[in-house]
C-alpha cells in the first residue's frame, strides 16, 4: 500500500502541472480528433479523471480497480468511451485518453523518487499496471457500444431486405436473398405473417433462389416459417430450389414434410393460382402468329 499512496501523493502535489502536461500530450497526439472533441471539453474530462484517480488511489490504492473506491472513475470512463464510440472515434483514439497520462505521471514519479531507485521501479510498475487496466477498460466499453450500434443497423437492414409482395389475389411471395440465421428468421416470420393478415392471403410462396446454402439449420428455420404460416391458415410453397440444394436436402435427410416445392417462382405461381381457383389463359393468337 505504501507504493500506491505515492501515486496519490504525486497527483495531489502536482495536479495542476500534470493536467497541463497531460492535456498537451493529448492535443499533440496524432490520434486527437479535433473535429469531434473541443479542447475545453477535453480539459474538463481530464481534470475530472485526474481528481478521480487521486481520490481512488488515496483511498484504496491502485491494485483493485474493480473495488468500490474506483466506481466513480470507472463510471466516468464508461461514459467517455460510450460517447466516443458513438461519435466515431477509433478504439486507439479513445484509449489514448488514459495512456497519454503515463508520460507526465512517470516523469513526476521519477523526480520524486530520484534517490530511491528501488521504490521508483515499484511505483512505475504500479502506475503502468493501473493505467493499462483503465485503458483496456475503455476499450471494452468501446467495443460493447459499437456492438450495439452494429446490432441496431443489422436489424434495420434485415427489415429492409425482407420485402413481401402481393403477387395476386390471395397470393403473397417472399424472395429471400442472403443467409437465413435465427435472427433473420424471426424478422422473416413477422413480416410474412403480417402481410398475410393484411392481404388475407391463402398462399405464401417463399423463394430461396437467393439463399446461397441450405444446411440443416437453414432448413429448420424454413420449416419453422412454414409451420407459422400454416397456423395462420395459409399454405406455403417453397420455390427456387437449385439442383445442388435438392441434393443437399436429400443427403442431410431433411424432411420437408408436406410442403410443396417447385424449382422456379413461376411454377410456384401457377400452382398457387390453380389452388386459389384461377388460371392463366392465352388470349387471341391468330393475329400475331
Amino acid at each position, binding site marked *: 500500500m505504501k507504493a500506491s499512496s505515492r501515486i496519490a501523493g504525486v497527483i495531489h502535489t502536482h495536479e495542476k502541472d500534470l493536467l497541463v502536461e497531460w492535456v498537451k500530450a493529448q492535443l499533440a497526439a496524432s490520434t486527437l480528433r479535433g473535429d469531434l472533441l473541443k479542447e475545453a471539453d477535453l480539459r474538463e474530462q481530464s481534470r475530472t479523471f485526474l481528481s478521480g484517480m487521486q481520490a481512488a488511489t488515496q483511498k484504496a490504492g491502485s491494485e483493485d480497480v474493480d473495488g468500490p473506491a474506483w466506481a466513480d472513475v470507472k463510471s466516468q470512463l464508461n461514459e467517455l468511451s460510450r460517447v466516443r464510440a458513438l461519435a466515431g472515434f477509433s478504439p486507439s483514439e479513445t484509449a489514448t485518453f488514459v495512456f497519454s497520462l503515463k508520460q507526465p505521471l512517470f516523469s513526476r514519479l521519477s523526480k520524486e523518487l530520484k534517490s530511491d531507485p528501488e521504490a521508483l521501479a515499484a511505483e512505475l510498475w504500479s502506475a503502468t499496471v493501473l493505467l493499462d487496466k483503465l485503458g483496456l477498460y475503455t476499450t471494452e466499453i468501446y467495443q*460493447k457500444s459499437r456492438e450495439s450500434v452494429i446490432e441496431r443497423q443489422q436489424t434495420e437492414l434485415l427489415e429492409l431486405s425482407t420485402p413481401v409482395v402481393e403477387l395476386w389475389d390471395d397470393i403473397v411471395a417472399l424472395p429471400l436473398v442472403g443467409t437465413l440465421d435465427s435472427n433473420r428468421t424471426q424478422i422473416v416470420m413477422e413480416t410474412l405473417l403480417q402481410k398475410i393478415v393484411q392481404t388475407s392471403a391463402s398462399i405464401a410462396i417463399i423463394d430461396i433462389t437467393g439463399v446461397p446454402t441450405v444446411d440443416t439449420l437453414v432448413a429448420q428455420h424454413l420449416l419453422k416459417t412454414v409451420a407459422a404460416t400454416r397456423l395462420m391458415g395459409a399454405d406455403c410453397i417453397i420455390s427456387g430450389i437449385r439442383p445442388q440444394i435438392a441434393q443437399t436436402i436429400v443427403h442431410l435427410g431433411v424432411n420437408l414434410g408436406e410442403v410443396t416445392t417447385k424449382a422456379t417462382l413461376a411454377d410456384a405461381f401457377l400452382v398457387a393460382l390453380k389452388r386459389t381457383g384461377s388460371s392463366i389463359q392465352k388470349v387471341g393468337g391468330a393475329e400475331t402468329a
Partner: protein
Amino acid sequence: MRQVVREHAIGQGFSLVDQTKIVTAASELARNILNYGGGGEMIVQPLAEGVRRGLKLSFIDQGPGIPDIQLALKDGYTTGGGMGLGLGGAKRLSNEFQIDSRVGAGTRVTITRWK
C-alpha cells in the same frame, strides 16, 4: 399475472413477439406451480446491463419437487395429463433458463429474456 409480465415486458421495450414469448413462458411455469407446486410465487426483475435490457422471472414453489429434472425437461413427459411442454417449452422461449429442484423441498425456475 400475465398482465403484470406483459406490462414489464413492454416497459423494457420488448417487441410484440418477444412480449408474447415471455408471457407464454410465464404462463406455462405459473400453471406448473398451480398444478404441481401447490401454489407459489413469481418474482419479476427488470434487468439492465449497459445498453442491454432484459426481464428475469423466477417461479418458486414449496411443492414436492422434481425427482428427475432431465426427464421433466423432455417434451411430451407429463405427470399431469397435459401436453408435457411446460418446462421444455418455457426453456425454448427464453434466452436463459435455470432450474433448481429438490424432492421434498420445492422448485425454483428462473427464465430471462433479453430485448
